[in-house]
């Protein structure tokens, strides 16, 4: 046990020190604005760095190259422990208990974006910047960032990269060196974020709101600096910008990089996932707009289309930004949106859920089984977008989806047992495990997760971490063989 954990702790200590550096951003903001949260950030940044340094020194003797299981453990440990560290300034400054601070930080880092805080516009700007920055860091992944920064993670880097990157097939790389690949992905991510921020600034936000919402859009987190979320701005142009960038964020960042390096959009058309995502989103937006119009929710079709488009895209991509309280829409629409948030986001994107590639694989596998019944001697490999998917991957996808559904069902039962109503239980778990953000019922867009009690919040936090690390990485911690020598 000791010689399994300590080498991992050594690398984790480095991650902590890097993380402490990111706290300088809100700290500088606090100095600039001279806001009262300054002291909390000074203490947190210092404490995090000191803790990391101490741990690093204490475990120096155990430094060694990471093996597969170390990688898994590092990623799981990082994601479970960092929200506690990240929540520290919130806990220190705001009148919330540790559970709520942890939930808020976990919600940021996993890019879920459900909040327990209200009166957001009255919070110090440094606190709001910190919440959004957490979202942004968690979007592409802290570990992927670490792999990009520390070249010595080398071979071990691949293990941990795989444990954090979403999607069933992670062996394809943009460049031979894993560190280089991580750098390119972060560059694509940062570049798109910058573009989004500039667009937001010129469609009417001030710089601060533009940065915060740019972070939210690209990381597909749902944090906003206003209680009414994007509805606060009531601006069609802002909604269009955010819709566009949320769709981009839900596509594979490797595809973005390819498109950029080829200076053309061909890469998107070649990406089977991207085609499916755009198709599903297009049909859903139009369908729900028509549904809302005929149900009389909105008086005219353009308004219905506007609200349907923004909220459906946002929810389906697991972004979770919203302009309307869609929990008040006829139940078909929000349930469809919850369904979409489980499947739409692409592998290698910042979204959550089971990912479009797995949906495609499962659909094709189902189709293959059906055909096999008619033609028992048929030989047909499973292809997605012209590439043959190995049976090994199909099995992994099946196992993943089984675990995903079992996790959802059991967590819903836990929420029900704790006394929540059905819609709230169902939607809170779905929204959390898919890292989407707001749910329905008590936790709908009109309210927030603040109404849940501490126990229910811990369940939601667990669901968010499970979803962000695609279940396996967390569950593997509970397999006895991992801990055996």
């Amino acid at each position, binding site marked *: 046990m000791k010689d399994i954990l300590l080498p991992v702790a050594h690398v984790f200590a480095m991650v902590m020190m890097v993380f402490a550096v990111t706290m300088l951003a809100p700290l500088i903001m606090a100095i600039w604005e001279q806001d009262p949260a300054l002291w909390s950030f000074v203490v947190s940044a210092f404490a995090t760095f000191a803790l990391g340094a101490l741990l690093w020194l204490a475990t120096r003797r155990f430094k060694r190259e990471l093996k597969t299981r170390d990688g898994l453990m590092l990623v799981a440990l990082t994601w479970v422990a960092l929200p506690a560290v990240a929540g520290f300034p919130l806990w220190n400054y705001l009148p919330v208990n540790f559970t709520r601070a942890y939930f808020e930080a976990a919600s940021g880092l996993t890019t879920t974006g459900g909040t327990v805080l209200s009166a957001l516009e009255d919070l110090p700007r440094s606190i709001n910047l910190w919440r959004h920055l957490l979202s942004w860091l968690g979007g592409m992944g802290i570990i992927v960032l670490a792999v990009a920064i520390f070249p010595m993670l080398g071979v071990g880097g*691949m293990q941990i990269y795989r444990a954090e990157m979403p999607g069933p097939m992670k*062996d394809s790389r943009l*460049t*031979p060196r894993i560190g280089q690949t991580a750098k390119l992905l972060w560059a694509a991510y940062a570049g798109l974020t910058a573009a989004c921020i500039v667009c937001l600034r010129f469609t009417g936000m001030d710089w601060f709101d533009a940065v915060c919402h740019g972070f939210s859009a690209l990381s597909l987190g749902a944090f906003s600096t206003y209680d009414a979320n994007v509805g606060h701005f009531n601006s069609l142009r802002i909604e269009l910008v955010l819709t566009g960038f949320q769709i981009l964020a839900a596509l594979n960042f490797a595809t973005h990089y390819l498109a950029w390096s080829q200076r053309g959009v061909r890469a998107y058309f070649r990406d089977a996932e991207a085609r499916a995502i755009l198709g599903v989103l297009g049909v859903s937006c139009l369908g729900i707009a028509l549904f809302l119009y005929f149900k009389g929710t909105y008086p005219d079709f353009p308004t219905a289309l506007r609200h349907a488009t923004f909220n459906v895209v946002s929810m389906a991509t697991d972004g979770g930004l919203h302009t309307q309280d869609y929990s008040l829409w006829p139940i078909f629409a929000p349930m469809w949106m919850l369904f979409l948030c489980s499947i739409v986001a692409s592998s290698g994107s910042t979204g959550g859920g089971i990912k479009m590639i797995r949906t495609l694989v499962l659909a094709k596998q189902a189709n293959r089984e059906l055909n096999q019944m008619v033609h028992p001697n048929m030989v047909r490999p499973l292809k997605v977008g012209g590439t043959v998917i190995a049976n090994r991957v199909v099995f992994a996808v099946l196992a993943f989806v089984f675990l995903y559904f079992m996790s959802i069902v059991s967590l819903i039962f836990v929420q029900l047992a704790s006394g929540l109503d059905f819609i709230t239980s169902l939607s809170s778990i779905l929204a959390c495990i898919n890292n989407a953000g707001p749910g329905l019922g008590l936790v709908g867009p009109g309210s927030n997760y603040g109404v849940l009690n501490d126990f229910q919040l811990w369940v939601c936090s667990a669901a968010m971490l499970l979803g962000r690390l695609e279940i396996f990485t967390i569950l593997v911690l509970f397999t006895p063989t991992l801990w055996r020598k």
Partner: protein
Amino acid sequence: MRIIILGAGQVGRTAAYHLSREESNDVTVVDTNEDMLRDLQDRLDIRTVIGNASSPRVLEAAGIAGTDILVALTNSDEVNMLACHIAWTLYRTPKKIARVRSADYTEREKLFGENALSVDVWISPEQLVTEYVARLIRYPGALQVLDFADGRVRLVGIRALSGGPLVGQALRTLREHIPTADARVAAIYRSGRSIQPDGTTVIEDGDEVFFLAARKDIRVVMKEMRREEAPVRRVVIAGGGNIGFRLASELEYKSQVKLIERDPKRARRVSELLNSTTVLLGDAADEKLLLEENIDGADVFAAMTNSEEANILSAMLAKRLGAHKVMALINKPSYAELIESGSIDVAISPQTVTIGSLLAHVRRGDVVRVHSLRRGAAEALEVVVHGDADSSKVIGRRIEDIVLPHGTTLGAVVRGEDVIIAHHDTTVQPDDHLILFLTDRRHIEAVEKLFQGSASFL
């Protein structure tokens, strides 16, 4: 440097390992075996591409455009040569190295070049291993004999034994022992650890000593380290495969060679091709056969079959039955370490022998030859220095004034036809070939920088 390796066989995997552990190399490996590639990618920081090595589409997927070196190491000579040709024709890849085994191709120099097959360098691992083993047999007592400057200088690894006049003496006294010859001790390994040799270092019994000397002086220097052994007269080779056969044909004129081969067809074929070698049909691990063929009178028993386990066992058996010195071909580095401390005298790793010829091409600066030593931990290299006293950090300086990284020894200078063993007052001149020994391969970048010259010169 961006490198594509075609073929993930034994040699391909070792090449990927050695090349990718250097920070500056981006390595992509292409093979048709998916499981092999997955396993490789788990252990090394490389990219892998599944597919046929000579297919342009696969090469494109591996990023051939912009690649600096293509190393074709698949099992098929034809695929290797074709892949190199395609890479040059379609993508103008600057350097293409192909593994070409068949002497049928390699004998015809016109095949490779401007208006022919675009292969810049061909290597034949079997040929390299054969030459290596043949050198070892020519110098009985040596653990390693490596050529530099077309064989004018050799690096010899030898285990010092009490009985050698220099053993128990300081290195400084070497000059007094042999006034006519000159040599430079580049490294000493004592119970697996390297010690930096200087004039006062005392050689102990059991030390592994690496020294550089001109070819003609080698025997004299070796005699200082251990009692001279009689030249090899009787050789028994186990395995009539590619290496065993080549070795036999190389040795059969000077020594009395027996070759044991298990497969009747192959034995027949080999016996047709060889002249004075006695080809025996049978199992090399068969005690009766070995005794019958007077294994106790053999000077060298060399186990050269394809199976390393069989090599180890037959070599151990031969040793027990009285063969004077036994050698075994061993692929797995971990086996090699196990074995050399035991009853087998020399473990030969084909990959380590081969990898050097690849490494010479990825080194920056004008590096002509690289030999990988001690399973890749150490390296010996031959560098040509260019430029003048202003543009180079070494030209015009005395060796004592050149700051070398820790664990690096400058052993010899080859100037035209002359071999100058390096002394503190030797001055480096333009176009000298310097021979360096690095006990720690990790300093390679510092050494490269030293010899690259200033940026303006490049």
